[in-house]
């Protein structure tokens, strides 16, 4: 449905995108993951025809965005990082404007009713956009992308600045939309892509590091299980005991400290579950464990892991 090939984009001396290629098939939800400044927005802006690349091409449903921009743009609904809202219009006026702008040929009232229903905007349709809360504004932005029923939806960081309840709502909405549309979604939150997307493309420094189905990325990330433990007891002795425990590969102390307890990060090798072993070990020393929780990897750590793996694989191949 969407084919991005060999995009290169430089802003002055700075190379923002360096040979970025990926493709999205119909009905897929693709997560575009990367830290701030990785080139996510630049890629999405090029895909939607807002910017032009120095080289490379973007095809939407087989139509090149540069050769036939009008046809290609008709197939895309885009929610930029900052929703493009005219603050002094009401929701209804704004969506009607977008409807006309996109030159849609549906029954206008019915179509806009549908869009508002899906995005749960029906109650605020007559309110002026500038008076709406951030969450509603974001939904108006999503509604704007949905007008005209485009095949491909592109959302640039759709959950930034929303409260937790709104984040869940927006994620659910995206998942629903994914049933009928091809969705590309950018974010810097790892759990978000894991929750919503079928496939993950990870980008950093303008280069694509990884392009895999979500499951395989998750398992790659979770190969080493990590736990955060809160243990009462003398730090040095607890550390030593933890290191001796069977299956534990790595132990470190965090700066989190309470009266008589310290917080430790314990990593185990492979699939072995060290929780029981740690518990019995701590019993021996009579150091009570007052907290234990699985610890996910941060995005930076995932990058480290993926890049390490990537380079290890290429080394293996060379050998």
């Amino acid at each position: 449905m969407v084919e991005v090939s060999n995009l290169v984009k430089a802003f002055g001396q700075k190379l923002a995108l360096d040979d970025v290629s990926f493709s999205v098939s119909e009905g897929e939800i693709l997560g575009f993951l990367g830290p701030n400044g990785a080139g996510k927005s630049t890629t999405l802006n090029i895909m939607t025809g807002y910017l032009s690349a120095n080289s490379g091409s973007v095809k939407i449903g087989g139509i090149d965005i540069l050769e036939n921009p009008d046809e290609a743009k008709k197939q895309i609904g885009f929610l930029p990082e900052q929703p493009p809202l005219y603050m002094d219009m009401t929701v209804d006026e704004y969506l009607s404007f977008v409807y006309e702008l996109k030159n849609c040929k549906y029954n206008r009232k019915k179509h806009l009713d549908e869009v508002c229903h899906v995005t749960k905007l029906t109650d605020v349709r007559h309110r002026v956009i500038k008076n709406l809360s951030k969450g509603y504004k974001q939904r108006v932005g999503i509604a704007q992308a949905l007008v005209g029923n485009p095949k491909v939806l592109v959302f640039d960081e759709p959950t930034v600045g929303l409260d937790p309840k709104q984040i869940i709502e927006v994620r659910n909405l995206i998942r629903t939309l994914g049933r009928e549309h091809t969705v590309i979604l950018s974010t810097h939150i790892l759990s978000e892509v894991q929750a919503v997307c079928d496939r993950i493309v990870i980008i950093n420094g303008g280069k694509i590091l990884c392009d895999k189905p979500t499951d395989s990325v998750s398992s790659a990330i979770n190969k080493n299980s990590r736990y955060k433990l809160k243990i009462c007891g003398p730090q040095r002795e607890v550390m030593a005991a933890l290191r001796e425990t069977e299956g534990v590969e790595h132990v470190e102390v965090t700066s989190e400290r309470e009266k008589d307890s310290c917080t430790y990060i314990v990593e185990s090798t492979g699939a072995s579950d060290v929780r029981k072993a740690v518990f019995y070990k701590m019993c021996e020393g009579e150091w009570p464990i007052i907290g234990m929780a699985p610890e996910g990897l941060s995005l930076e750590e995932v990058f480290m892991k993926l890049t390490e793996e990537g380079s290890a694989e290429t080394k293996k191949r060379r050998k």
Partner: protein
Amino acid sequence: MLAIYKREMRAYFTTPQGYLFMAIFLCASGFLFSLTTLLMQSSDTATYFQFLMYGYIVLVPLLTMKSFAEEKKAKTEQLLLTAPVSLWGMVMAKFLAAFTMFFGTVVISMLYYLVLGLYGDPNWAKVIGCTVAMILIGSCFIAIGLFISALTENQFVAAMGTMGVLAGLVVVAVINGIIDSYAIRLVLDWLSIYSRFTNFTQGIFDFASAFYYVSLCAVFLFLSVRVYEKRRFA
């Protein structure tokens, strides 16, 4: 394109912008008109139009300053540029909206001629010729204003920049009087919007000048499109 035009027109009338423009335009032109014709007890409109051109220097930026600058600041241009609308369509829609406002106000100001016709005996051919020329000059100024608005995201900078450029274009004619070199004077005279207007005030419909105004307008609309095209690549 029609959608953008309609939205622009709506924005002129749901914000004070459109009303302010009309009020200031009509106040200024009404004042100039009574000063140059009624108080002078003359039916010669030449001075009125010449003064009005100075008025345009302040009035036109009111109309054009926010056209592109505000869209850029509010990031709404991303919506326009990723919609299936060509750059020309977008620029023309903005131009036509500003022009409609301008033209509508000029039409209202034609009521003054009625007074002139009732109490005097004006040279109608000359009045009409001048009015047409002033409308062309106005559209030319609007195109320049739009171009400068496309260059910045700050409305104030857009307004001041436009005033500066327009003042430059009009005042060139005045500076021309003190330049010794004939060659320079000839070139500036040819370029000057103000000098080219002289023929109209003498009752001649100068097609060359009319064509000049239209081309200047087209050039600046073209440049505005280029600004957007360039930004996509920069």
